[in-house]
C-alpha cells in the first residue's frame, strides 16, 4: 500500500514573490506531511540509500521512527551519523545520493529523504536544549581551525569525548561557508545556522573569531606555546578562481565569493548595513555549480536581469537539481554550451558585455563528463554590466606556507589520509581543505572521522 501514495509535495514560497526577497524558498513539511511522506519508505532490507549516503546515515531507521510519530527517536538515529541534519536536509545533493538510490525512484518518485531529515533536524533545534550530559574533561586540548561544517563536526565530537576544544575562526562570524557562501534563502542564518552553532557551544566548545591561523597565530605556536595536543584543520577552500581571459580586472567583474560574501556575510542587501554591493542591471554568472546558482539568484533578488553562462549542457550542470529548478522558476536565464573568451569594457573601464563562443560536447574527460569544445567561428556578444565568476575555489595556501612539514598536493590541497592525519604528527585535516570544494556532508563526515583519529592519537601519545 505504501507505494500508492505519491511523494508529498513540499510547500514553497511563490516564485514571483521570492525573487524579490531573501526569505527561505522552501517551507519544509509540517508534521502531518512529514509523517505521511515517512509512510512511503519501504524500509528495505538492503537499503541502497544508506550505501549512497557519504556518511551512511541510517535512513530507513530514522524514517521508521518518524513514521511512528517519535521525532525524538528519529533525531537520535540521525545524530549517530550526522551532526548537522537541519543543514544537510537543506543543502545535500540528495538526487545523486540517498534519493538517487531510493528503490521507489525507479518507477516513481523517491522518498523525500532530504525533506524528512530537515523536518527532524528542525524539530530537534526547536526543542528546549537538553542539558548536555558531558563526560568529565580529560585534560587534553584540541585546536580546530575554521568554523565551517568540518570544524563544527570535529569540535562537537571531541567535546563529547571529553576534550577541551577551541575553534579559531578567521572571519568575524562563525559558520564558514554556511554564513559567507550559502544564501539566506537556502539556509536561514539565525533560525538554523546560529542554532546549530549554539548547540556546539553548549557542548563546551569555545570559539575565538578574528583569528587568521597562519598569520595571527601559527599552528606551531598552537602546539608548542599554547599547549594544544592536536590541531584539526578545517579551513575550507576559499580562494576564488578566475578564467584568465582579457578584461577580467574591469570594474564590474567579481568572483562569486566576493558577491556572495558581500550579500550573505556583510548583509549588503540590507541598507542598514554599511557594506556596498554592485549589482547593475544585467548580470551574467559564469559557471554551473551551486555557487553559481546562489550568485545568480542573489543578483535576481537584488533586482537584476540574471543569466547563467555554462560551457557544457544542462545535463552536466553540477548544481543540485532543486537549485536549477528554483532558479528557472525565479526567471533566471540559462545559456548552456556557452563559454566567455573576453570581458568587454567601456572606455572608462566598466564591464559592458562578454564575448562568448558556442561550445559542443566532445569526448569524455577525466571527470567522465564530455568535455566542451569551442565551435569554430561561433563568437557572439552578450550585454551585461556585471560579470560574476563562479568557477570553483581552491584551498588557501596560507596554512601550508606557515606550517613546517605540512604537505600539500599540486592543487594546493592539504595531504591527509582517510582518517585525516596529515604529514605532520598531531595535525589533522578534513573537508574542502583536503578534497577541494565539495559538499557540506562530506566535510562534516571528514570532521567526525578526524575526531576519532585525534582521540586515538592523543591516547597513544
Amino acid at each position, binding site marked *: 500500500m505504501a507505494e500508492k501514495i505519491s511523494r508529498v509535495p513540499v510547500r514553497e514560497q511563490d516564485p514571483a514573490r521570492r525573487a524579490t526577497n531573501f526569505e527561505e524558498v522552501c517551507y519544509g513539511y509540517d508534521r502531518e506531511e512529514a509523517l505521511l511522506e515517512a509512510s512511503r519508505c519501504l524500509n528495505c532490507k538492503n537499503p541502497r540509500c544508506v550505501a549512497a549516503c557519504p556518511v551512511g546515515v541510517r535512513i530507513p531507521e530514522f524514517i521508521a521512527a518518524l513514521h511512528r510519530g517519535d521525532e525524538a527517536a528519529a533525531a537520535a538515529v540521525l545524530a549517530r551519523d550526522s551532526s548537522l541534519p537541519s543543514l544537510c536536509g537543506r543543502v545535500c545533493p540528495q538526487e545523486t545520493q540517498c534519493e538517487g538510490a531510493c528503490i521507489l525512484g525507479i518507477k516513481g518518485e523517491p522518498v523525500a529523504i532530504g525533506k524528512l531529515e530537515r523536518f527532524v533536524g528542525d524539530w530537534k533545534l526547536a526543542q528546549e536544549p537538553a542539558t548536555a550530559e558531558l563526560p568529565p574533561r580529560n585534560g587534553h586540548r584540541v585546536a580546530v581551525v575554521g568554523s565551517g561544517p568540518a570544524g563544527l563536526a570535529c569540535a562537537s565530537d571531541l567535546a563529547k569525548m571529553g576534550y577541551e576544544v577551541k575553534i579559531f575562526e578567521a572571519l568575524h562570524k562563525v559558520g564558514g561557508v554556511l554564513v559567507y557562501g550559502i544564501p539566506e534563502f537556502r539556509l536561514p542564518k539565525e533560525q538554523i545556522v546560529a542554532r546549530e552553532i549554539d548547540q556546539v557551544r553548549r557542548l563546551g566548545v569555545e570559539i575565538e573569531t578574528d583569528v587568521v591561523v597562519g598569520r595571527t597565530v601559527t599552528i606551531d605556536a598552537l602546539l608548542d606555546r599554547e599547549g594544544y595536543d592536536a590541531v584539526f584543520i578545517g579551513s575550507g577552500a576559499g580562494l576564488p578562481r*578566475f578564467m584568465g581571459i582579457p578584461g577580467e580586472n574591469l570594474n564590474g567583474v567579481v568572483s562569486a565569493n566576493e558577491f556572495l*560574501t558581500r550579500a550573505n556575510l556583510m548583509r549588503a542587501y540590507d541598507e542598514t548595513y554599511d557594506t556596498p554591493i554592485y549589482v547593475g542591471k544585467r548580470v551574467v554568472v559564469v559557471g554551473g555549480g551551486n555557487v553559481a546558482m546562489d550568485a545568480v539568484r542573489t543578483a535576481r533578488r537584488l533586482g537584476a536581469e540574471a543569466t547563467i553562462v555554462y560551457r557544457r549542457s544542462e545535463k552536466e550542470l553540477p548544481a543540485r537539481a532543486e537549485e536549477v529548478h528554483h532558479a528557472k522558476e525565479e526567471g533566471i536565464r540559462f545559456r548552456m554550451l556557452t563559454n566567455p573568451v573576453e570581458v568587454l569594457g567601456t572606455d572608462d*573601464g566598466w564591464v559592458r558585455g562578454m564575448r562568448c563562443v558556442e561550445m559542443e560536447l566532445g569526448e569524455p574527460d577525466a571527470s567522465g563528463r564530455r568535455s566542451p569544445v569551442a565551435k569554430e567561428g561561433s563568437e557572439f556578444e552578450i550585454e551585461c554590466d556585471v560579470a560574476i565568476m563562479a568557477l570553483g575555489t581552491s584551498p588557501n595556501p596560507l596554512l601550508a606556507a606557515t606550517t613546517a612539514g605540512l604537505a600539500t598536493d599540486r592543487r594546493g590541497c592539504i595531504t591527509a589520509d582517510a582518517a585525516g592525519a596529515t604529514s605532520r604528527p598531531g595535525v589533522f585535516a578534513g573537508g574542502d581543505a583536503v578534497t577541494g570544494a565539495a559538499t557540506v556532508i562530506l566535510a562534516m563526515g571528514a570532521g567526525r572521522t578526524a575526531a576519532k583519529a585525534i582521540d586515538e592519537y592523543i591516547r597513544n601519545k
Partner: protein
Amino acid sequence: MYPILEKRCLAEGIWLMKIRAPRVARAALPGQFVIVRTDERGERIPLTIADFDAVEGSVTIVTQAIGVSTRKICALEAGEALADFAGPLGHPSEFVGMPMEELRSRRYIFIGGGVGTAPVYPQVKWLREHGVEVDVIIGAKNRQMLIYTDEMRAVADHLYIATDDGSEGFKGLVTQLLEKLIAEGRHYDECVAIGPMVMMKFVALTTKKYALKTTVSLNALMVDGTGMCGACRVSVGGRTRFTCVDGPEFDAHEVDFDEAMRRQGMYRTQEQRAAALAAEREAGHRCKIGLDK
C-alpha cells in the same frame, strides 16, 4: 571586542588610535595590515598597521575620515571598542627577511604621503632598531596636514618635508624633492613609498628614471582580507595578484597603477550615496530626494 586605549588627533580628520589586540601585537611585523570593523553593521576595512607593541599588547592604527566607515572608526572614543580587529594580514616588508649584513649595506629612502605616512613609521623604526640608516620624505598638502614628523625625526637619519604650499619644508611634490636629493648626490638602493595611489604612481615613474628599486604598499578594496573575495586584484608585471595575500607590498615598477586606481573607485558612487544617507540620518530627517529609496 577590542578596546581603544588611546585616541589622538594628528591633523584635521586624521586620528591615531591605539587598540588593545594582544594576539595581533605579538605577531605583527612592519608592512602588514589589519581588518577593522566598528560594529555589527559595519564594513570590514583594511588599515595598514602604524605601530605595535607586543609587551603592551597594543596595535596603533591611523585613520583618515573620508568614507562612511572611516568616519565611524574616527567617531569612536578612547574607552570604547572596535567590534573586530583581525590580523596581522599580508606579507611583512621584504627587508624583514633579508640577511642583516646585506640589509645594513643598503640605503633606504621612504616616502610617506598624507595618512600613508603612518604605516611608513613602523618600517623606519624597525630598520633603525636593526642598525639600518634610513632617510624619510613626508609629504602633505600643508603644514597643518603633516603627521608623524616628531616620531619620524626620532628614528630617521634625515627627515625631509614637502608641502604643496611650502608652509613647511620644500615647496612642491615628494617626487620633486626626491629628484632634488638625488641631484644633490644622495644615493639610495631602495625607495619605499606609501600614500595615495596617484602619489605612488608618480613616485614609481620618477624612480624608474633612476633605476631605483621601489616598493609600494597598495590600499586596494577588500572584503575579507584573507584571499577569499578577490576584490583586491591588481596587475603586477602582467599577472593578476591579490593585494591581501600576495601583498600588500609590490614592486612599484611592475604595478598597473591606472587599473588599480580605477578599481579603487568600483564602489565610489555607492559609497557617496551611503555617505549622503548617513548624513541625512544624522540630520534626523527622511531624505526628500529619494536617496534612501
